[in-house]
């Protein structure tokens, strides 16, 4: 006779986590309160959004200049963070670094990740003043917290067989890393870098709000001056275009790397 498994055996870690999430969200509902006033939500929304249209195209050139500065901040900070993260991630990878180096590095990365990008931007503005350099410093620190974690996890998950084979053929540990482990980790690391670049373009659009350069300053000015929501909407539109282009290009490149790694492209 077929015996059914007890009902609770269906709950694995994934199921329990989802259940806890659901209970937490439902439990939080009563504490989410509105103002208690009788407001016309739809009316407010439509009045406010109608001010966004039509976008004011007269400021396009100025916006594009700000956008260029935003992209430049994102490019430089992503490059700097990649270089720093590669070094830190090697120190934070369990399969590479000794324990005495592993834990302090991971602790430093945890501290860096705790600070949000806007706070990094404020700190940088206080130190170097209100300029794009502050943006670069802020986003570099912010990105290192994430990239170094992603990189170290990639190194830990990468196939180490080739590394061991090269060691047995006489390669030094550094050479075995460079030619055995790094090529297996590189495509995933490159994919993380692209994601970080996309993310930094978005972040660089915001940090200007606190004076760290880029298009964020324009957003702040238009939001604070009267009747400028149509200018604000043009800036948003430009950010949307650049983020979509980056997202599309990044996905194409990532897909091509995945195909190549899975051996789908054999010319």
């Amino acid at each position, binding site marked *: 006779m077929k015996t059914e498994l007890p009902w609770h055996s269906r709950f694995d870690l994934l199921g329990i986590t989802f259940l806890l999430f659901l209970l937490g969200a439902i439990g939080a509902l009563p504490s989410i309160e509105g103002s208690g006033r009788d407001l016309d939500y739809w009316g407010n929304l439509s009045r406010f959004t109608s001010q966004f249209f039509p976008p004011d195209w007269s400021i396009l050139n100025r916006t594009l200049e700000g956008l260029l500065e935003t992209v430049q901040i994102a490019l430089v900070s992503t490059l700097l963070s990649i270089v720093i993260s590669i070094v830190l991630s090697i120190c934070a990878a369990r399969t590479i670094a000794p324990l005495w180096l592993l834990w302090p590095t991971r602790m430093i990365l945890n501290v860096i990740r705790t600070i949000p990008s806007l706070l990094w931007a404020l700190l940088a503005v206080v130190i170097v003043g209100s300029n794009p350099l502050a943006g670069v410093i802020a986003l570099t620190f912010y990105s290192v917290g994430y990239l170094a974690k992603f990189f170290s996890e990639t190194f830990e998950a990468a196939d180490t067989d080739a590394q061991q084979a090269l060691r*047995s053929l006489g390669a030094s540990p550094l050479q075995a890393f460079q030619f055995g482990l790094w090529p297996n980790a590189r495509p995933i690391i490159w994919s993380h870098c692209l994601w970080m670049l996309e993310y930094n373009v978005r972040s660089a659009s915001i940090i200007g709000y606190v004076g760290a350069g880029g298009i964020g300053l324009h957003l702040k000015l238009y939001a604070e001056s009267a009747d400028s929501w149509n200018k604000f909407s043009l800036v948003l539109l430009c950010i949307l275009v650049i983020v979509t282009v980056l997202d599309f290009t990044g996905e194409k490149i990532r897909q091509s790397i995945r195909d190549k790694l899975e051996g789908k492209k054999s*010319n």
Partner: protein
Amino acid sequence: MSTPLLTAQELGLRIENRTLLKGLTLSLNPGTFVAVTGPSGSGKTTLLRTLAGELEPAEGKVVNHLDCPTRLAMIFQDLQLADGATALTNVLGGSLGRHSFLSTLFRFPSDEREKALHLLAQFGLSGKSNQWTSTLSRGERQRVAACRTLLSQPQLLLADEPVSSLDPSLADEVLTHLSNSISGKNGCLVCALHNDEQVTKFADLVLRLDPSDPNGWKLEDLKPKEVA
């Protein structure tokens, strides 16, 4: 008689409480092609890895008489290639033991690149040298692994089923290259093989393993006159 490159004395192999082999005494002499045969699970890979020094024998001992440990190299059954690197870079990995980290950091020396390209051409892969190994077929990857090991210029080469994914004519070609490269250096090639035709065609000595009896291994001299 020349000094053997490696000797196994009263060797016993065991995996997870299963005894694969007992009492094997074997000398690997220069200029010899030794074939190891036997059905899957008979202990061919375990024997090669023990001879390579990767595994400790359960009984007996392996004595390596080579002047430099890197003169012993292995072609692994699972190939152990870097998938995200080109075939050429993988092959060049075989030369790393001869160079410092700094001298290979940005580019391999041109003479090594030439040797690697020559090997790839010999093994019919000249058109694939710049392709990632992940995009190559199993047979092509097998040949890349063979090239990498040959570039390390071993005197004793342990090859674990190096031609299992190749068609018979290509397999013969690869075995000829391996055999010539090793015997040219007065070395010894130990090769796990499944195909009896390849064994009789290339091997001087064949070790037949018996999965049902650890003492049932047989060592046959196939070319007694030439060996003598």
